[in-house]
């Protein structure tokens, strides 16, 4: 698989470490009243779709940036790649 890195261009997927569902960006608020329940869902439950999946890849053997890759889990086709920092800021996170 080739991942089209937004800064570095097409890179072999072997240069990356895979983490999983990009919803891991949305870390729950630890002060929320139902924080325990939210953290349980955040830590352990996954949609695990067959089809389009947004996921976190770390460019370990490259520029060490985190990417959000939109990939089809049935065909392995990659349709979109963005920097995780930008994706996080777009969702209202400070970094």
């Amino acid at each position, binding site marked *: *698989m080739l991942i089209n890195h937004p800064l570095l261009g097409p890179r072999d*997927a*072997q240069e990356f470490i*895979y*983490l*999983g*569902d990009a919803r891991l960006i949305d870390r729950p608020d630890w002060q929320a009243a139902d924080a325990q329940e939210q953290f*349980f*869902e955040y*830590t*352990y*439950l*996954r*949609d*695990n*779709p*067959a089809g389009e*999946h947004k*996921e976190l890849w770390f460019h370990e053997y490259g520029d060490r940036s985190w990417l959000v890759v939109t*990939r089809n*889990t*049935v*065909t*392995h086709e990659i349709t979109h790649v963005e920097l995780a920092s930008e994706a996080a800021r777009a969702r209202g996170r400070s970094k």
Partner: protein
Amino acid sequence: MKYSGFRVIREALTGHRGWGPAWRDPEPKDQYDIIVVGGGGHGLATAHYLSSVYRELSVVVLEKSWIGSGNVGRNTTLVRSNYMLAENTKFYGMSLKLWENLEQDLNYNAMVSQRGILALHHDDGGRDAQLRLANTMRMAGGDGEMLDVDQIRKLYPGLDFNNPLFPITGGFIHRRGGTARHDAVTWGYARAADRRGVDIIQNCEVTGFRIENGKCIGVETTRGFIGGKKTGVAVAGRSSQLMAKAGLRLPIESHVLQAFVTEGLKPLLPGVVTYGAGHFYISQSDKGGLVFGGDLDAYNSYAQRGNIAVLDSVLEGGLSLLPIMSRARLLRSWGGIMDMSMDGSPIIDKTHIDGLYFNGGWCYGGFKATPASGMCFAHLLSTDQPHENAAGFRLDRFRRGYVIDENGVGPTPNLH
């Protein structure tokens, strides 16, 4: 028809015209007591024990394709019980005992072969870890034995003992472990269940559940609605997708695992060998092919085929352990969709919906679990109580903080 030596001789003398199909191909009825979804090893074993041990009279297995088309027909057939955590030692210990009597129970030759599984170590740290495992297993009533280099050399002269980076410094053998013929396990369970009246419906995909007032009363399928007082789901890599139809989000990710086989060779490996330095394991099938595998591809996947990078690293591991492999031709490679759970251990439990039960999260070790999984799931479906040997495999253990994480790697499914 019961299989026997006498029968084989009689058929041989009469031109083999008396063999019938091993199971029927019935039309689905409107209503059953128990529906088992998934005609893999676990679903069929569940049906067999439901009918034989729990005396359930109205059971159906629904399979979307042909039985054995999933992981049970794709695995590398290792059967073992070498675990450290109490929940696992008793469950897999029970499974191994069931394997040892499987053929008599099923009246089917599943080619269960306790040829021993040898795990190699390459340094002091590896040896200490294995010694600890061996002792833990023996204390739990299992078998584990440390071997020195000379003993290993006698068993496996073809290994590279003096690899400069990873010399073999000894190993650990689990003699009751070994292999079985995966398809025969599927067919044996199917035939035994069918003989007791279980309907096995192939080409019948479950597309949803009919849930009324918090109770599951049956399933929607590509062949229409089928009613059931209880429904047990055992669909391995498809678990998340199917259970989502009942509104459940599972602690599971689906990943692809590959396996490989070479052309048939003369006897070379008497048992199973696992490499302690790379992720690589190998055995030789009775036909002579070297059967081997390694790591997951490590990203979510529903494709039953893998990436070339894993092929590369598995072969590198193989060649550094068994250099003569370089002369063998690789015949085939394939992949299966693994239901990787968040702690590496399985789930056999009720759901919050009345009448709906779930079995899954088998990771890449579910073949050896097949008999015990079937027995425990049948127990749960029939009695509504967890089997004593599967009492830890609860769905809510993640919420309660009682994970069963044998490798201690946390909620990272691709590392288990």
